C-alpha cells in the first residue's frame, strides 16, 4: 500500500532537517520551504537529495524533475518541499500494485 502524502511529507521534512546541517541552514523547514530561495541549494545538494530520496522511495524521475526545474524562468525558478513530496507521492501511486505508471 502506498504511503500517504502526510507520511511522505513527515519523512522528507525529517530528512531535510537532518541534511540542513551540511547546508548551513538553521531556519524551520516546512512544506512551503523553497529549495533554492530558502535553502540556497546548489546542483550538488539537489543531486545528494535525489540520491537520499531514491534510497528511501525507490526509483524516481528525478533527472526529469531537475530538467523541468532548469526550464523555468531564472528569476522565478524554485520548488517547494511540498512539490517534491507531490512527485514522490505520484510515483508511489504509479508503481503500487494496480497503479498507473
Amino acid at each position: 500500500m502506498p504511503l500517504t502524502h502526510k507520511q511522505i511529507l513527515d519523512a522528507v521534512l525529517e530528512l531535510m532537517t537532518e541534511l540542513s546541517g551540511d547546508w548551513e541552514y538553521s531556519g524551520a523547514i516546512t512544506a512551503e520551504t523553497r529549495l533554492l530561495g530558502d535553502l540556497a541549494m546548489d546542483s550538488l545538494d539537489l543531486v545528494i537529495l535525489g540520491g537520499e530520496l531514491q534510497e528511501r522511495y525507490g526509483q524516481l524521475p528525478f533527472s526529469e524533475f531537475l530538467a523541468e526545474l532548469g526550464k523555468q524562468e531564472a528569476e522565478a525558478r524554485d520548488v517547494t518541499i511540498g512539490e517534491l513530496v507531490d512527485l514522490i507521492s505520484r510515483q508511489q501511486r504509479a508503481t503500487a500494485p494496480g497503479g498507473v505508471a
Partner: protein
Amino acid sequence: MPKATLPSGLTLHYQRAGRGPDLVMIHGLTGNLAVWHLKIVPMLADHFRILTYDLRGHGYSDMPPDGYTATDMAADLEGLLDHLGVERANLVGHSYGADIALYYAFRNPGRVLQVGAIEAALPALIHLRTREDWVGWTYWVQVLERSGVTVPPEHRCDLEYMVRQSMSIPKKWGPLKGLPRNPEKFLRVLDSTPLTRDYEVVGDLPLENIPRIEAPVHLIYAEGSAFLGSHDYLLEHLPNARSVMLPSSEWGHFGPLEQPEVVVDHLIESLASPTAAGARA
C-alpha cells in the same frame, strides 16, 4: 551523505548508483560529483555500478591545506577504492579528473580495466598551454567577455585570475542554468590551498612515464577543443589508446555537460567491451 575517511585522515564525499562492472567517475577543477549525476549517471546506471566522489577541496570532501597535485589526488582515489573494496574498475575522468585517472592507471596497472579520458590535459604537457598563443586562453577570454567580464591584457594567460573571474559568470548548465554561482567554497580553496600551483606539478607522470601506462585508454575530446595538443601527444605515446572525437561545441572542453548523451553513447560503446581499445582508431 556517504563519506569515507581514508587512512591518511582525509574524508571524501561519494555517491554510488547502478549495477554492473565498476565505473569510477572523476570530476575536474572547480567541479563536483554533480557534473556526472545531472544527466550521465542516470543513463549509465543500467550498465555500470558507478562511484562518483568529490575531489579533496571540492564539494563536500575535506579541504586540507595541501596535497592537490595529480599524484596526491590519485593516492586519494586509491585510498577511496581500498576503503570501498573496489579491486578493479573502469575510470572515466574529465579534465583534471582525466589526468588523475591516468596517474592512477600508471600507479595501479592491475586495478584498472579501461580509462575514458575526457579532455585530459596532463601537467607534463603544461608547455602546450602556458604559451600566450594557446588557443584556450582566447576561447576563455571570449567566454568571459560574452558574459560582460573584461580581462586586462596582463591577465589573459593567468590561470588563477581566469578561474576566479569565471566564478562571477552565471551557471551555464543544469537545473540552475542562468542563476548566479555560489563561489564561496571554491574561492576558499583558491585562497587557502596551493591548488592552482599543484595543478601544474608533474610528480609521478613525466613524459617518459606516459608509455608505461598499460591500461586501454579512450581519448575523448571535442573537435576544435583547445586541448587537442594533449590528445595528439597521448595518442602517439600511450601504448594502448584510441581516439574518440565528439562534435564541436560552444565551449569544447565541457563534453559531460555540453553533450552528455554523446558522451554516454561513447562510454557504453568503449567500455562495454574489454577489447574495444585494443586497436588504435
